[in-house]
């Protein structure tokens, strides 16, 4: 390539690759990489894409059950919910972008998780979000809260997907690293689920959606490094979401999916075209030629490096059956979206990138994937804290006035106070299927469309999906194993409390810097606790996401393994909410 700069150690470091990781790259390539190749390795081997610190631990989670159709490893998890229907769901973080630009960060987080779900063929039926902010007295907190909530509302409402639940907590440990975890649940016929594995040498690779701009270049590496003073300077890379285009993309994809033209499909999320193309080719054991000059571009003067690493939103990559391009193009043009054939599959197991006919990148795919760094980072478990001596904890006074004061203190604490001001900004009723709304019960409950009696559903009435998101970070901090167990158990209880059968879990592991043994120990402990609880409850983990390096100037967040759970109820008429519906009923306390 013209004007290729020489790769210096400084450029390597700027790409977040450790010296030994760069050595590994040289061995795979057998030569010095071009800039675009370096960028690709850097993105693919970032913590965000490679899970290099967490993979060994994630393997310990139970992922199987007779009703699991697809566990971790695809865009989202898939479970059988009867009547020929599947629930497809996942949770994902957009923590760092939301701290930098709360509205757009949160909005594009919602956009990303929606794509993960509809890329598999599901129509999304509900969204949830788990939010952690810093001290409410911190002046920045107000700005972050209002921006994040408006961003989630702006995107989800425009998409027409009800946001039916979530959680919102405050703690000073999140002052410099808020958490924005978004979850989407979708429904698809079990025989119409789409996967990412590319097959068929010669088949066309097709790009659809929005044009590519210079948004979020280096986003994936940014979200894998700690914040510091100069993260402000990374600001211009913030992605801007366009929910209107995503709504068109959803409808266009579902319309094309109703035909049999698609072989494989994958959304462009973190590390955009790079990760989507590598994943599709690697899963199919094939190679790929991509003509980057054919990528629809929003700005002039873009180069291959920028095209491969851009995180522009609302884009998808697909492999079509040969000869079906025109049929597909018509659908996307009807929805006023870009459509471009940008390459084809080969049997070389290499990713060959061309730019106006010149080869600008040529990378062997299997070693990039299989020889990606994997770390068994040192870890020290958090010891079980000493038991509190109840006698030493000051008890509140025992007069009615004291009780009242305690109650007021509890009810006015930001964590317990009503979150109605948040969920009233979310359209939680659209689609007309919301049976249990926010604050209506321990889990949200949404009717499953198309599963009425007419569709052969065995139950007498409306089938529903119950969903919840739970975690109590201070428990996890005190003792990660117990806290991890507790989070799973609470999610399970919340599903059962509305009368549904808990089926499976998605998670979002939000932690600090994994290179610190005590943080890695929190991660390990939480996983062990979650694994234990999921196994005991027959509650497999089918998808999830890891967000590490949530630290500011060395201060980590509270360990926060958010658990999202889904259950099914055969007849919504048998569900129960948590409202006291009439006076004179008995209140009963059960359990230990």
């Amino acid at each position, binding site marked *: 390539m013209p004007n290729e700069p020489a790769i210096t150690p400084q450029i390597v470091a700027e790409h977040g690759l450790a010296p030994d990781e760069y050595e590994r790259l040289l061995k795979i390539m057998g030569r010095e990489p071009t800039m675009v190749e370096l960028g690709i390795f850097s993105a693919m081997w970032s913590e965000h894409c490679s899970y290099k610190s967490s993979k060994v631990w994630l393997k310990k989670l139970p992922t199987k059950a007779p009703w699991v159709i697809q566990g971790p490893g695809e865009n989202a998890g898939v479970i059988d919910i009867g009547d020929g229907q599947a629930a497809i769901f996942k949770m994902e973080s957009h923590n760092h972008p939301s701290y930098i630009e709360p509205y757009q960060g949160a909005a594009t987080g919602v956009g990303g998780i929606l794509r993960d779900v509809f890329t598999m063929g599901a129509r999304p039926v509900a969204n949830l979000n788990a939010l952690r902010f810093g001290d409410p007295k911190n002046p920045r907190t107000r700005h972050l809260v209002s921006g994040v909530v408006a961003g989630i509302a702006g995107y989800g409402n*425009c998409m*027409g997907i009800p946001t039916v639940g979530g959680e919102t907590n405050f703690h000073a440990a999140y002052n410099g690293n808020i958490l924005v975890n978004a979850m989407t649940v979708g429904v698809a016929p079990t025989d119409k689920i789409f996967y990412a594995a590319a097959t068929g040498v010669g088949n066309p690779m097709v790009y659809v959606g929005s044009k590519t701009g210079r948004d979020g270049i280096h986003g994936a590496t940014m979200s894998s490094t700690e914040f510091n003073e100069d993260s402000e300077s990374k600001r211009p890379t913030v992605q801007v979401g366009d929910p*209107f285009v995503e*709504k068109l993309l959803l409808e266009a994809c579902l319309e094309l999916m109703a035909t049999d033209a698609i072989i494989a499909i994958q959304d462009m999320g973190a590390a955009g075209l790079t990760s989507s193309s590598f994943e599709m080719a690697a899963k199919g054991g094939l190679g790929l030629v991509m003509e980057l000059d054919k990528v629809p571009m929003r700005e002039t003067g873009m180069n291959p490096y920028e095209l491969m690493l851009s995180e522009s939103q609302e884009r998808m990559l697909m492999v079509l059956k040969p000869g079906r391009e025109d049929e597909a193009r018509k659908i996307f043009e009807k929805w006023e979206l870009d459509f471009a054939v940008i390459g084809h599959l080969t049997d070389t197991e290499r990713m060959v990138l061309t730019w106006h006919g010149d080869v600008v990148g040529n990378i062997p795919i299997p070693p990039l994937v299989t020889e990606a760094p994997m770390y068994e980072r040192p870890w020290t478990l958090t010891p079980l804290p000493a038991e509190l001596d109840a006698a030493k904890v000051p008890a509140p006074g025992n007069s009615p006035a004291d009780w009242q004061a305690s109650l007021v203190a509890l009810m006015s604490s930001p964590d317990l106070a009503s979150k109605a001001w948040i969920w*009233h900004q979310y359209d939680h*009723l*659209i689609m007309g299927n919301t049976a249990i709304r926010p604050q209506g019960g321990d889990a949200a409950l949404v009717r499953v469309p198309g599963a009425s009696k007419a569709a052969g559903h065995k139950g007498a009435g409306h089938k529903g999906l119950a969903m919840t998101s739970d975690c109590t970070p201070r428990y996890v901090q005190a003792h990660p194993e117990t806290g991890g167990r507790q989070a799973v158990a609470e999610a399970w209880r919340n599903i059962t409390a509305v009368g549904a059968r808990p089926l499976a879990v998605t998670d979002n592991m939000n932690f600090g810097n994994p290179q610190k043994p005590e943080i890695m120990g929190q991660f390990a402990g939480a996983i062990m606790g979650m694994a234990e609880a999921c196994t005991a409850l027959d509650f497999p983990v089918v998808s999830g996401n890891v967000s590490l390096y949530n630290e500011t100037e060395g201060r980590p967040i509270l360990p926060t393994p958010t658990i999202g759970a889904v259950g099914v109820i055969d007849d919504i008429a048998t569900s129960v909410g948590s409202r006291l519906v009439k006076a004179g009923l008995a209140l009963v306390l059960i359990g230990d």
Partner: protein
Amino acid sequence: MKSAILVFPGSNREGDVAQALELVTGRRPSLVWHGDGDFEKVDLIVVPGGFSYGDYLRCGAMAAQSPVMAEVKKRAAQGVPVLGICNGFQIVTEAGLLPGTLMRNSHLKFVCADVHLKVETSQSLFTNRYQAGQVIKVPVAHAEGNYFADPDTMKKLEDRGQIAFRYCAPDGTVDGRGNPNGSSSNIAGVFNETKTVLGLMPHPENAVEPMFGGTDGRGLFEGMVEALS
């Protein structure tokens, strides 16, 4: 009763209103794509909620200029009933089928909540199943539902009985408490002069089933069936 629901890029409550109409009429309405200048003869045209064209520029502005709306204006002039809900209300006002305009909510936020509406008249094909003064509970879900018209227009609306619904307290009191968006005179829905076009911000289509938001919105659909079948 044969009905057509318009679909614009970004419409998203067309399924909700189709579900409601089907429930009440037993007949699936047809969906009409915005680019179609012509469509089959129907007894009712529904412009549904959503974010047509992303609600960019002004809510409803771009959709109002589409070929299908030119056809809708023609049919409305011939007396074909038109129901605009939420974004549909914004579209039909932008298209000039109804007076006034819908501005940003006074608190500037999107609001999704059940509200109470006072039915102002039962004398219309849309409201004949309700009684004047009756209070119903249906949800709203919008960021720009703050109805505004100049004083002359407001006076005309009042004088000619063109106000269909007003936001109110559960007991029917019309004052600031029940108003979710700052609308002038608590207006939630208005008619054209002949009461064949109705625009309203709330979503009766999300209040037609007991377990999914109640049934207070059902009357609107049943009333139309009665009037138009």
